């Protein structure tokens, strides 16, 4: 049995993902306790360095939970975030690190169920990949 409990950091858009979190709470659904949330006003503000730093600090996986492509409050914030996540995937690959350790999820305010599922999906994936840093 795999006892590894990955440390996951999630950057969540305060417009959609956070509302989805409230919906999830209403549905009595909770995130796994190994997922830490950083709430951001818009995922478009997340820089490449923000996405790399958690790995440096010992995170095993990182994800960005933002809006649907066509419903970003700031028009194209999520599109910018998608490009940066793609860039970090490339950088991880160059460093021989599994690119699946970082991911982007499109949510919307009402998607409480999907909000929790995204976190669980990420935890399962990273669990499969194993710890980021050697023991």
């Amino acid at each position: 049995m795999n006892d590894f409990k990955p440390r996951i950091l999630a950057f969540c858009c305060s417009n959609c993902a956070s509302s989805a979190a409230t919906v999830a709470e209403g549905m009595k659904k909770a995130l796994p306790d190994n997922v830490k949330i950083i709430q951001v006003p818009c995922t478009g503000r997340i820089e490449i360095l923000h996405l790399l730093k958690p790995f440096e600090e010992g995170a095993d996986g990182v994800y960005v939970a933002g809006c649907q492509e066509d419903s970003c409050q700031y028009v194209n914030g999520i599109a910018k975030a998608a490009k940066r996540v793609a860039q970090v995937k490339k950088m991880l690959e160059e460093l021989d690190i599994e690119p699946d350790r970082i991911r982007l999820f499109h949510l919307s305010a009402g998607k409480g169920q999907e909000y929790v599922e995204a976190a669980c999906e990420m935890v399962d994936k990273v669990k499969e990949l194993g710890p980021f840093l050697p023991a």
Partner: protein
Amino acid sequence: MIVAQPKPIKEVLEMVKDFKKILVVGCKGCVTVCNVGGAKEVGILAASLRIARKRSGYAIQVDEHTLERQCDPEYIDELKDIIGDYDAVVSTACGVGPQFLSERYPSTRVFPGVNTQFMGGAEEHGVWSERCAGCGTCVVHYFGGLCPIARCSKSLLNGPCGGSSHGKCEISKDVECIWDTIVNKMMEQGRLSELLEFRPPKSWTTARDGGPRKMIREELVK
């Protein structure tokens, strides 16, 4: 500005593989403007190095410092009290930076963190293109304000070659034939006949062909 691009991280890792204390030095000049070697990119490169080495089980110290410019001695002097603490320096300035650092600090191992590409400008955010070949004798006014030396694949000065097709250069459909643009612009300005004026062959002695260049302006020399 001088436009550069990041060196592949594996290349940088290979260069510094034997060192345990590394200083990544950025430049607030051109490479900051083209998003490749300023404080932000220094942070990204340093984090990537730390992550890679940590992951391989050999954590090292990688610090960050960004200078006003790396092409002026007074700014490079800023490192004099700290550079001795490091085994190696990675410069994210254009090719001038690592050389100025090497000259000023001869006992320090200095490595380039970027590949310098060309002198150019930003067509839009994230897209840069070449505009100047630094030939030393500017002649853009003969060609409607456009430089065929930098922008024609063959640097032709007397009109397009047979590889010009529908405004594109034969080397790639993404490369405009600058001669097509020059001729159209001169026609629009009613100055096409100026292209027929005789001009003596261009002297390339002011370009790289004349060897490494140096410029002295006596009125500025202390």
